């Protein structure tokens, strides 16, 4: 067996809190974007017409509102990958055994799958129905976490190779023809490759994102010791990702799924999301890296601007599970508000939900810090 990477330098340990701030804040920002996407889903009448598999945009505001949510899945997966890598190496440096460190993430991954199948699936409809046999983003994060434990000790460039290879492989596997009415075919294909009623977030492309997140963690949390380096390398990597994504898109062939009209038009930016095309994966990898870079920069210039995102970013699973439940129950109790508003309603809904969620997150974070309860620690 290879030795785990010697990842945690004394400098890093000293600056652990600072180093985590931009990760937490960016994850919190992603959470808030997701909240906005969900308030739109529940209150914005455009969802009476919007097919997430084939989205159409009646206005620029509706486009921006929908597109903001596109950052969430890649953001969460990359942050999850980064934190798995970081936590694994921190545990190893504390003297915890290799298997024990991996087992922690396997348990956590399994818990996420269970949370998806129970709480999350039910909360969408305000706990009116129990639909355990359905996967989603949380299950995809959980499974990716489990798979990541298999390669977490690999060197960053080996993981980078795996991540990119899986992205390419996924683009090829998308051509597999299967019968979605046959249960086993639907379950296998939609768990790993395609998107559909059973699962909109197949594991392969999102696992690749988590792997790339773990690769970026090497830079963000280990190699690049100053914020200046993090910003510059982050910009360079994001630029490369955008360049490659644009090159693939402009070829209009492999790696593309939907047609587009002009450079940077709606249709250029909105290739298939469920499941993502190679272009979308590379583009959003670039956007997440760029976003983290901006958060590092803003954290240096006006740190107070990002404070609001810190707490939800520290308890992302709690934030996700609770806000979804509140929205689901609220719209069940007050159906007159369900999909009757517009963009402004979605924005107002987000602000009101934040007023509810921020104190709740702060409260739960306090409990989490003090508690030794296994489940609370896992959430």
């Amino acid at each position: 067996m290879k030795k785990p990477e010697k990842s945690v330098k004394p400098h890093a340990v000293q600056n652990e809190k600072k180093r985590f701030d931009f990760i937490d804040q960016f994850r919190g920002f992603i959470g808030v974007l997701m909240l906005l996407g969900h308030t739109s889903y529940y209150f914005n009448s455009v969802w009476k017409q919007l097919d997430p598999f084939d989205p159409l945009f009646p206005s620029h505001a509706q486009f921006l509102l929908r597109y903001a949510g596109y950052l969430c899945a890649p953001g969460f997966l990359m942050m999850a990958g980064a934190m798995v890598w970081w936590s694994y190496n921190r545990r190893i440096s504390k003297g915890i055994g290799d298997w024990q460190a991996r087992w922690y993430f396997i348990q956590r991954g399994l818990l996420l799958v269970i949370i998806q199948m129970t709480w999350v699936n039910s909360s969408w409809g305000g706990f009116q129905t129990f639909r355990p046999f359905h996967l989603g983003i949380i299950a995809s994060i959980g499974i990716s976490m489990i798979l990541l434990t298999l390669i977490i000790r690999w060197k960053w460039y080996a993981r980078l190779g795996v991540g990119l290879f899986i992205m390419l492989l996924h683009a090829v596997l998308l051509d597999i023809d299967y019968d979605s009415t046959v249960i086993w075919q639907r379950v296998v294909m939609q768990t790993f490759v395609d998107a559909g009623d059973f699962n909109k977030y197949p594991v392969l492309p999102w696992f690749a994102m988590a792997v790339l997140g773990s690769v970026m963690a090497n830079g963000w949390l280990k190699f690049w010791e100053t914020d200046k380096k993090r910003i510059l390398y982050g910009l360079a990597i994001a630029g490369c990702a955008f360049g490659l994504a644009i090159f693939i898109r402009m070829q209009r062939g492999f790696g593309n799924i939907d047609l587009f009209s002009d450079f940077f038009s709606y249709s250029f930016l909105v290739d298939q999301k469920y499941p993502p095309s190679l272009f979308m994966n590379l583009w959003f990898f670039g956007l997440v890296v760029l976003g983290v870079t901006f958060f590092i920069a803003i954290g240096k210039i006006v740190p107070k601007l990002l404070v609001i995102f810190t707490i939800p970013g520290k308890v992302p699973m709690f934030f996700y599970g609770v806000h979804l439940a509140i929205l689901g129950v609220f719209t069940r109790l007050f159906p007159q508000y369900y999909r009757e508003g517009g963009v402004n309603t979605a924005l107002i809904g987000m602000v009101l939900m934040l007023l509810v969620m921020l104190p709740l997150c702060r409260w739960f974070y306090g409990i989490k810090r003090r508690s030794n309860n296994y489940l609370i620690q896992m959430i």
Partner: protein
Amino acid sequence: MTFTKLSDRTIRDGLFLILIVFSVFYGCSSRENKFVEDENHTHFFLPKVTDDISADVLFCRKISKKSGKPLGTGNIFKIKKEASLTAIVELKNRPLIHNTDLMFHLDWIDSEGKSFFLKPIILTVKDTSTFLTSSISLDPEIRSPGIYNLRVYYFRELIAEKSFELINMLREDEDDIFAKIELGRKLNKSTNLLESVDSVFAIRRKSNVQSLITLSNLPVWDDETLTFSIEWVNPEGKTFFKKKFSVEPKAETIHLNSSVSVSPEKREPGQYQLILYHGRKQLASKRFSLYKK
């Protein structure tokens, strides 16, 4: 690497520039924000580039198989069994864009604002069509009265929208063709009136029974030929004479006529019947009696 030697100010300015570029250009809309209404009541969003595609929408009951023209055009349609509504989207400037595949979506929105049918259409480079079509059923089991919409999207962007109204029929048969059958001895061709109108006729040498059928409520919007047939049926139930008519519905009311001989060597006394068909559907019938004098 040398770029790590850049000054903080340069980095900050660079980041600010990136932010500006992304904010301004991200997801450029190719259309104006406000719609314009044309004489056809289509709301369309003008392209920012004047020779880009725009669309005009026309609703009709059907497209003529004979001429290919839209028939029964309008914005108000009746909910009716077996009826349908077709939207024809005329693409302006289509010939100017010929080097790439084009993506369209036609989205039908019901009176509650819900999409009930989304038709994606890809026009390949080889396909030079300048029209898109999409049809929906107007069956009362799946449609209810209200204001509906058709939205036309071009590369995921709304370029045109037009509303139409679906209404219930006052009577279930209000769109049916009505037929009135009269029988007599003779038809006055100058007045188009029957003489000696009756339903009981004597069998006599060189004598006829004349029918006059008045068809009304014909679909004048339709340019397709309507086929009718008249069958004369004897007391045994057998058709002894049949006559076919092809009618172009240019007026709401038209007349058909047919006559049969009732001379003693051809007819027996008894109950006879005249039946009128539209295609295979029986529209009307009339019984009459013949007797020996």
